[in-house]
């Protein structure tokens, strides 16, 4: 029996949940979800098959009954067979049928004639792939009104157009910070990348070192999300490297030159299902990773506080936790378990990054509410990292058009939903940070972490919550653009100068830093100028750690799919997967072409199901699965405390006084537990008196 199964036994016992063997029908949610599903694997990528799911029209509608109306016989026979559990998040729900009008601004860009499209102003040329046959073809990025689109022509499959970026002004603003990094001096695969992206491994053409290394520790998962290709289904081989194999992968990542990876994300499947996850984290820490994240649903840790403490002690500081919304409808994956995960992390002192995958028409209306939820739990939540959906795999064109959302699209919705408190001007593209580390490198002559990714891949901002509950985005009091220009000028000036001259230039630059900070507007609890000077004087980003602890980081990371594929983006990718055969692969080759990378290599190193059963006596596929008891979870005081007592920060007069869009109204059909009478403060004395 695996360690995981032991944990689950513990969980069920502790929470009073019945196990599958006891015959509980897992209740998925209260109302039946119509969400369309979202990735919470952290990757932002989900597959979609040709059809639209079983079409049953819903999930278990609370209690023990199923509302699907389509498979009564099947359900009845299942009950008879005592196979009465339903895998969490395993059904594809129906997508709301929104009529698509050619005049609608959101969709008009898809429905033009080729003659009209060819007349649109061209922004730049790139190389892309045909979504159908994977032929490398030229792509043209062009302006269509306010939109930035990509068009491509395959000789066999003709024209294809897709949204690239939903705001032209933001595109031009972000593009200013684009620059080319140095790549890796000792690439793991010998090749010049002529046939990019099919020459990956990583080759000498790649332009960015590993910024965040992903290592898959298992493909077993306790959920069965309908869109996910990443977990082992019944009878499929198990990919679960041993601690020694993982240790070797970690050391390989640390051997990269000139800048080894320093941030590691341990992912899966569900990584907490690896029986030696604590030891894995310990080895990663020993290998030299300063920042170790666990990409998880949070369910196992939520019900096993000791495990949370152990992983913290081993070196994991952050939980990268999928959380797609603040209602059961938008977050069928772990809505009920999130309060427990928050509690466990509070106790273990682990920071949490919420990772909502955003799908238009599904959960895009709850982005503001997600930020508000994070602000309510700022003692433990460090960041919200939105991931606009990556529509990998085959799916109907119309559905793709409806669900597509890009970074600016999401940013604009956040502006609407937060009452204008977080506006699009507040966001900067990730390579913006390059200005700061270039300055430090030029000053010290030492390599610094280089976030030279493509500007279209990510955007970010910081929110400060002041003492009076005012939400203040960083760019409200810092002239961020001015700062980077100033630092870039200093870098140019330093070129060719000696050490002393460089230091003099740096001092002159640092002296003028206060000019870019508006002290009147900065949060009262913060001295940003001092903090920034510390960053430069300490010559590393440790001082930024203090910044993180006082703020909420908002990030956007948009992974590509075959339709939006841009080779300029993939060759600058800094989120890499380290594989057991020693190769290192950018996220958007690993996940967009799984058939030649992810699945292929993992299959090579997997253990066939039969062999796995031999070496894991007593294990079976179902044992891994999580059984949810909604009634128990909704009656839990922690659940009520988390969702019923939420504050709407954006409704406060200081933040505009307009409630955040779709502020979750707490409701449960289950009776609330009677309030427990407070215990006497000094029971011993009172008991004595009573006697």
């Amino acid at each position, binding site marked *: 029996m*695996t360690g995981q199964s032991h944990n689950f036994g513990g969980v069920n016992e502790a929470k009073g949940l019945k196990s599958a063997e006891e015959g509980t029908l897992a209740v998925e949610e209260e109302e039946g979800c119509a969400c369309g599903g979202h990735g919470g694997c952290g990757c932002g990528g989900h597959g979609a098959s040709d059809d639209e799911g079983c079409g049953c029209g819903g999930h278990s509608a609370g209690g023990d009954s199923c509302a699907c109306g389509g498979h009564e016989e099947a359900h009845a026979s299942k009950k008879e067979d005592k196979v009465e559990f339903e895998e969490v998040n395993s059904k594809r729900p129906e997508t709301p049928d929104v009529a698509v009008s050619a005049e609608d601004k959101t969709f008009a860009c898809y429905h033009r004639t080729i003659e009209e499209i060819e007349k649109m102003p061209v922004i730049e040329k790139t190389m892309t792939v045909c979504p159908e046959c994977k032929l490398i073809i030229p792509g043209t990025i062009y302006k269509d009104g306010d939109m930035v689109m990509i068009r491509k022509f395959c000789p066999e499959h003709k024209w294809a157009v897709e949204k690239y970026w939903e705001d032209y002004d933001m595109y031009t603003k972000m593009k200013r910070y684009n620059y080319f990094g140095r790549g890796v001096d000792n690439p793991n695969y010998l090749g010049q990348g002529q046939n990019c992206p099919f020459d990956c491994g990583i080759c000498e053409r790649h332009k960015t070192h590993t910024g965040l290394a992903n290592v898959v520790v298992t493909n077993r998962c306790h959920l069965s999300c309908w869109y996910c290709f990443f977990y082992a289904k019944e009878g499929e081989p198990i990919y679960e490297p*041993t601690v020694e194999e993982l240790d070797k992968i970690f050391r390989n990542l640390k051997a990269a030159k000139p800048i080894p990876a320093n941030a590691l994300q341990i992912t899966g499947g569900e990584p907490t299902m690896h029986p030696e996850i604590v030891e894995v984290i310990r080895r990663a820490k020993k290998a030299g990773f300063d920042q170790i994240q666990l990409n998880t649903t949070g369910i196992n840790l939520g019900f096993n506080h000791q495990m949370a403490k152990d992983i913290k002690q081993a070196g994991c500081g952050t939980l990268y936790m999928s959380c797609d919304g603040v209602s059961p409808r938008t977050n069928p994956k772990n809505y009920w378990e999130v309060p427990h995960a928050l509690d466990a992390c509070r106790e273990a002192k682990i920071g949490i990054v919420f990772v909502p995958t955003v799908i238009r028409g599904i959960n895009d209306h709850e982005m503001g509410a997600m930020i508000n939820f994070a602000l309510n739990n700022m003692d433990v939540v460090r960041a919200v990292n939105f991931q606009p959906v990556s529509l990998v795999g085959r799916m109907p064109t119309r559905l793709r058009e409806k669900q597509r959302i890009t970074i600016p699209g999401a940013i604009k919705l956040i502006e609407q939903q937060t009452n204008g408190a977080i506006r699009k001007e507040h966001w900067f593209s990730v390579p913006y940070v390059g200005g700061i580390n270039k300055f430090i490198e030029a000053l010290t002559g030492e390599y610094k972490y280089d976030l030279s990714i493509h500007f279209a891949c990510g955007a970010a901002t910081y929110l400060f919550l002041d003492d009076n509950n005012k939400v203040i985005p960083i760019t409200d009091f810092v002239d961020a653009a001015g700062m980077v220009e100033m630092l870039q000028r200093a870098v140019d000036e330093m070129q060719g100068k000696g050490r002393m001259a460089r230091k003099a230039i740096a001092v002159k630059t640092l002296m003028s830093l206060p000019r870019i900070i508006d002290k009147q507007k900065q949060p009262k609890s913060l001295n940003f100028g001092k903090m920034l000077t510390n960053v430069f004087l300490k010559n590393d980003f440790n001082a930024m750690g203090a910044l993180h602890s006082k703020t909420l980081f908002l990030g956007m990371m948009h992974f590509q799919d075959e339709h939006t594929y841009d080779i300029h983006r993939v060759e600058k990718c800094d989120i890499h997967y380290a594989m057991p055969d020693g190769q290192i692969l950018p996220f958007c080759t690993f996940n967009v072409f799984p058939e030649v990378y992810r699945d292929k290599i993992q299959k090579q190193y997997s253990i066939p199901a039969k062999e796995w059963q031999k070496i894991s006596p007593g294990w079976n596929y179902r044992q891994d699965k999580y059984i949810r008891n909604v009634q128990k979870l909704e009656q839990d005081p922690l659940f009520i405390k988390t969702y019923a007592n939420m504050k709407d920060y954006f409704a406060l007069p200081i933040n505009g006084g307009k409630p955040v869009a779709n502020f979750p109204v707490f409701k449960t059909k289950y009776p609330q537990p009677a309030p427990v009478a407070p215990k006497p403060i000094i029971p011993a004395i009172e008991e004595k008196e009573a006697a």
Partner: protein
Amino acid sequence: MDRRDTAQVEKTESQFAKEGEEAGQGESHFIMENGKPFRMPYRIIKKVTFSNLNQNELIDIPHVARLQYRLLLFDAVIKAKVDYHKRFIRIIYNPPHADNNREKISREKLIEFLANEGVHVSASPEDTVEVDYDYFKEHYSYAYFPPSIRESPPYGYTREEWKRLKAEKEKEKYRAEHPGIIARLLGKKPGMKKKGSGLKLHP
């Protein structure tokens, strides 16, 4: 009992090696490094290179890249490289007689596939060279210990400036790490303090 208990791993390993032997697959499931087992899907496989291809059949670089992609779709093809300019195709594949239980493919099948894709390879021994390929030594070990192929300077430095600075930094680092050797070179005992002028102030 946890499946990763040492005793069990050893038992399992030998058990599978035995099973593999019985099935005529040898002990190629694992390699041992520092006494620890590492799963190794392949050992001795094949590398075939088809050269002097007709460039018209290769069409152009995008088509060559797609051909490479299509070759990689075979589970038995571990790596493929199609070079348009040098007019060759190199395929590392798992041949039918290989000592493992993974998917296999024959050279004939590959040639047939290429012909279906419109690329006809020559049968002459000069143009079709097949050699043994040690997956562990040539692929796996390279990926885990890749040599440096260049040296990029930090931002704000030219290559020449960086060469000078690097030499200085290395010297400083060496001095800090080996104070004894430096002291000996300078004719001092390690840990010896700098002498004063010899003058003492009387109280």
